[in-house]
């Protein structure tokens, strides 16, 4: 039995490695100072998808991402690891989308791809930590969902059995296809890039990444090798309703953004010397903080 699998991946600013220049003096986020990376849990999802492909010959894995043209980087990263093809969903009309508008756009693209059996993504993205897009895409497609996936135990007879994390434990659930899974960081890590695939796909680009003035290097290669041109879709390409995309389709609005500055308390500072540490312990014991 072969399956059509789609992995949802997001390019995110690396919020785990935030330097001092991450915030502008005006208190807004300086995106330029943060490296853009493949959302970590989406990599865990990608690994699960690639394993299903290997275990079920004839299956295909596609990677779908929404973002600016440079987000094609996550598609290339997928191609280097064994996905069959990628789709970049890009349009100015998608800008400013909250989770609901994002899931609408992704669900329209999945409909356009058509006939998907399994959709997978990371549990959440590190820039928002909401964990909402997965379940919202499942709802928009009217399919089942299994969130917090740790491991896929079996896939047969149109049913998938999954071990998932729950509060205070684990559970094993069985869900009929089609299904959307979100995968945790505690699932197995993603395989590294494959050297042959890296050579094959290193020039893969979405049309919007290519120079428009005829100066595209190795232009003849893109004619000979259609797989080097990544499929790129706009709102119109996926038959999207503009009212449900981007800012217009987002019920949540940001009222205020604040760069929290802690109010400094009166604090006593000690060094790490023996004398200082002992003095501190004596003070803490004397005022019954500890002991």
């Amino acid at each position: 039995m072969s399956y059509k699998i789609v992995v949802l991946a997001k390019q995110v600013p690396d919020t785990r490695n935030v330097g001092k220049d991450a915030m502008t003096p005006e208190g807004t986020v300086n995106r330029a100072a943060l490296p853009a990376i493949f959302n970590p849990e989406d990599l865990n999802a990608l690994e699960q998808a690639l394993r299903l492909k290997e275990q079920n010959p004839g299956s295909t894995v596609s990677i779908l991402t929404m973002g600016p043209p440079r987000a094609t980087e996550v598609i290339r990263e997928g191609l280097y690891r064994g996905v069959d093809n990628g789709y970049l969903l890009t349009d100015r009309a998608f800008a400013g989308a909250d989770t609901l508008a994002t899931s609408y756009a992704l669900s329209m693209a999945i409909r356009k791809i058509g006939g998907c059996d399994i959709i997978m993504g990371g549990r959440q993205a590190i820039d928002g930590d909401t964990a909402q897009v997965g379940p919202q895409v499942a709802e928009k497609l009217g399919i089942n969902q299994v969130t917090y996936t740790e491991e896929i135990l079996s896939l047969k007879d149109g049913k998938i059995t999954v071990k998932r994390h729950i509060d205070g434990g684990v559970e094993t659930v069985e869900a009929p296809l089609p299904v959307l899974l979100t995968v945790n960081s505690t699932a197995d890590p993603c395989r590294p890039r494959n050297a042959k695939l890296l050579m094959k796909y290193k020039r893969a680009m979405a049309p919007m990444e290519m120079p428009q003035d005829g100066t595209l290097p190795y232009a003849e290669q893109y004619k000979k090798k259609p797989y080097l041109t990544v499929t790129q879709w706009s709102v119109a390409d996926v038959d999207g309703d503009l009212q449900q995309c981007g800012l217009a389709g987002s019920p949540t609005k940001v009222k205020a953004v604040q760069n929290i500055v802690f109010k400094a308390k009166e604090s006593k500072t000690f060094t790490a010397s023996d004398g200082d540490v002992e003095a501190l312990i004596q003070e803490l014991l004397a005022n019954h903080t500890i002991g």
Partner: protein
Amino acid sequence: MNNVFVYCEIEKTIVEEVSLELLTKGRKLADQLGVELEAICAGTDIKGKVESQVLPYGVDKLHIFDAEGLFPYTSKPHTSILVNLFKQEKPQICLMGATVIGRDLGPRVSSCLKSGLTADCTALKIGEYDDTKSGKHYDQLLYQIRPAFGGNIVATIVNPDHRPQMATVRSGVMKAETKDPNYKGEVIIQDVAKFVPETDFVVKVLDRHVEKAKNNLKGASIIVSGGYGVGSREDFNLLYEFAQEIHAEVGGSRAAADAGFCDCDLQIGQTGVTVRPKVYIACGISGAIQHVAGMKESGIVISINTDPDAPINQLADYVIVGSVQEVLPKLIKYYKKNSK
């Protein structure tokens, strides 16, 4: 109509603590808005068992959905319950726990109702809002306040035009306080079949293991907590050693959990446990906003950090400038010497 709703999470027949915390918050919001507080309990064999757990929090109406297949939780039946009940009752606010269940259910419900949802709020308030684009003024919206962007900012989110305004909140962020042990609320036993189509019961839970939490971080009076600055899993043992001496619990920051220095269930912060100890000892923790969100109500804060300008030092009562590896053994040594 227009009331505040809280979805209560139930393990077998016990209502989870996080739901009681949200009922307390929900009661306050309802009072401010001059509306009623309604609660939803869905499970199997819960009739006669959940009422006394929920009503004392000031619940005016309790909707009970009791049927086979509603426990253990699966996404679709619980989604149908909320969606169909909300279409009928038109709540203005719906709160649920930012738990595995709440984060599975909330987005699905919000997608179906096309209403906004804000995850992992650390504060909820009622306030006014002016939409600069449309020029419209809104009087009493729910401010959904949460750290965002890796904790570098705190955002206030509103849903001006869509109802219900939905938010999830982590366990321990709000405080549970009963309003009146004899609070008189109406109990409505709903006919599950009218809300949930039979086709919703498709995902089967084959096996389930739930254990009591291994740690007691939420109830601890002293917490020794380690961050990335601890350096390794081996050096995390120093925290356990010190904690054992002073009868404390051990916690960690997200950076420490991500690096594998400590287990994920020890994580304190916005996406982990929220704690309110008497004493919080931060070892090698820089103090990102998400971490601070989970410990800012601690009594006395002691920070051990090589960086004298670490943000956490701003809220510390005592700062020791030095490495965890150097300072902790000394703290242990001098505690032993002086306490006996």
